[in-house]
């Protein structure tokens, strides 16, 4: 809801490490030195945090919590005379809705079908952009442009390009001899899903490219020199040096993108509106549709289900990747770099 370019806050919230060569900051030590003025220090913290806390509590948390309890009540804008508690009735309605199966399948396809190409192409771009070349800065700025556009508007741009009669996609494909007849892309659920995925890949690759490129640039040259001395080939270097080194970034980026794409109805909303025949809805577009129909109870139930799924996913994903030593190795390396810096 915070616009389409809502960034993956978790990535940046990971304990950040100052750049190599940056002057020591000693924040912790400074804090300890100031401990003697505890009350004063507490007041400063409270005063500086208060505005942010108040805004987020009032306009984000309050509605969110209020929304959660609606999931267990009969809360429909069309009839507010009876907003009694109904237990799990709203959840049962979600599960028994004929659209539910389609919505689930589409959501899975939407997440996986977006993430995989975004990651692969983004990784490739990052590898190719690692070595300096003339106009590289300009290139990066240009491929960054899709990021300035809202998902909703991207949906509209691609809706026009995939137009069955006057769309440029059909025209180009016909010119290339790949299709004989114009395809009614957005009128058929299968091709419509392909079209929204193309649009989302177009939009999301840059983000992966940027994150991975930044990680690649933190790999010390000595590692590559050592790999070259050992006679490691390109593929071997990629899988034995590059990927292990940037593991933490890869894992966090994928995690946040999955959550984010899951929660990203804007593009589909603008491109197909969930149509044709409600066959391209994902969970969040469906939730918006139900909200617009006024059934806040059912929409909230759906929202809680999404939260539950994402929580399970986040815990599962983080544990699974940590077991193999990703987290600890990252931390160890960080420590080493701090010493060197």
């Amino acid at each position, binding site marked *: 809801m*915070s616009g389409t370019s809502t*960034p993956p806050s978790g990535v940046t919230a990971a304990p950040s490490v100052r750049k190599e060569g940056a002057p020591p900051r000693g924040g912790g030590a400074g804090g300890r030195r100031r401990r003697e003025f505890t009350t004063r220090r*507490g007041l400063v913290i409270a005063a500086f945090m208060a505005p942010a806390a108040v805004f987020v509590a009032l*306009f984000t948390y309050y509605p969110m919590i*209020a929304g959660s309890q609606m999931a267990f009540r009969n809360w429909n804008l069309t009839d507010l005379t009876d907003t009694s508690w109904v237990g799990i009735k709203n959840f049962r309605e979600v599960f028994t809705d004929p659209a539910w199966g389609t919505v689930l399948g589409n959501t899975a396809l939407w997440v996986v079908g977006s993430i995989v190409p975004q990651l692969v*192409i983004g990784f*490739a771009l990052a590898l*190719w952009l690692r070595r300096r070349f003339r106009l590289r800065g300009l290139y990066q700025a240009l491929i960054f442009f899709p990021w300035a556009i809202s998902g909703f508007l991207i949906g509209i741009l691609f809706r026009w390009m995939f137009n069955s009669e006057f769309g440029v996609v059909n025209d180009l494909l016909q010119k290339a001899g790949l299709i004989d007849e114009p395809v009614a892309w957005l009128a058929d659920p299968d091709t419509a899903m392909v079209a929204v995925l193309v649009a989302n890949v177009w939009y999301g690759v840059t983000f992966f490219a940027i*994150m991975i490129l930044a990680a690649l640039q933190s790999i010390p040259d000595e590692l590559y020199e050592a790999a070259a001395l050992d006679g490691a080939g390109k593929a071997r270097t990629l899988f034995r040096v590059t990927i292990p080194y940037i593991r933490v*970034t890869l894992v966090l980026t994928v995690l946040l993108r999955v959550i984010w794409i899951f929660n990203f109805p804007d593009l589909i909303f603008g491109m197909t509106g969930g149509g044709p025949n409600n066959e391209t809805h994902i969970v969040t577009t469906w939730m918006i549709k139900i909200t617009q129909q006024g059934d806040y109870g059912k929409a909230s139930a759906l929202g809680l289900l999404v939260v539950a799924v994402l929580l399970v996913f986040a815990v599962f994903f983080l544990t699974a990747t940590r077991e193999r030593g990703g987290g600890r190795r990252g931390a160890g390396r960080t420590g080493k770099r701090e010493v060197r810096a």
Partner: protein
Amino acid sequence: MIGKETTAGRATKFTFLGLWLVFSLFPLYWITVTSLKDPGDIFSFPIAYWPERFSLENYQGLFGKADFGTYLVNSLVVSTVAGAVATGISTLSAYVLARFEFRSKSALLMAFLVTQMIPSFIALGPLYLLMTDLRLVDNRLGLMLVYIAVCIPFCTVMLRGFFENVPDALEEAAMIDGLSRLGALLRVLLPVMRPGIVAAFIFNFVNCWNELFLSVTLMNSDENKTVPTALNGFISSFNIDWGSMSAAAVLTILPTMVLFAFASRHIVQGLTAGAVKG
């Protein structure tokens, strides 16, 4: 540095980079070309990849038929004020989170993070009811307040990363010279961090400028609509007028692209600051 490149390798690399660039820019090219065609030519065969006759009729229609100027002004006002206030508030919270250790710190950070993960649509209904109680439905001030809250969590996290790159000896020296903490922050730290703060503001601005669902939910009268809400109205009608639509899309995209071009380096820095730790 990363091994030698063969000529074939270079050729492959630049072919793919070139293809991706074309793919990246084509949709923007296409919407612009469409908007500059004569309305009649948009729906004619064969499809023209360059306007046969340039026309500003689509743009003129936008300000004549539809009240697009009003929507632009609304979006500009709401995004500027909300973006600026959110940046100001986030500067304070980011400073505290970067410089102090305190007990509820990780809880606060987690609370900010969670807002980014939960589908905020769960809050749309209750938010509408809350704003009704506050008499702030269909009110630009109301939308600003909500946008400020939406921007704060990520903006705080982003600015915190920037603060951590500034040595705290700087403000300690200023405080020894007799400045208060707030004074040191405003007069010593902020000037040093200006690029980061500008990037944070631009990021907020663009997010507010692009926001759709809250605006659709909270603003219903025509005079208060923001641009995305108006665009949503365009596609809700049965037949989309692609002439006006493309012109409106170009006018919506243009300001954000200019801002991003201006600040992309710092935004990238903010995004990747904490993520990359080897």
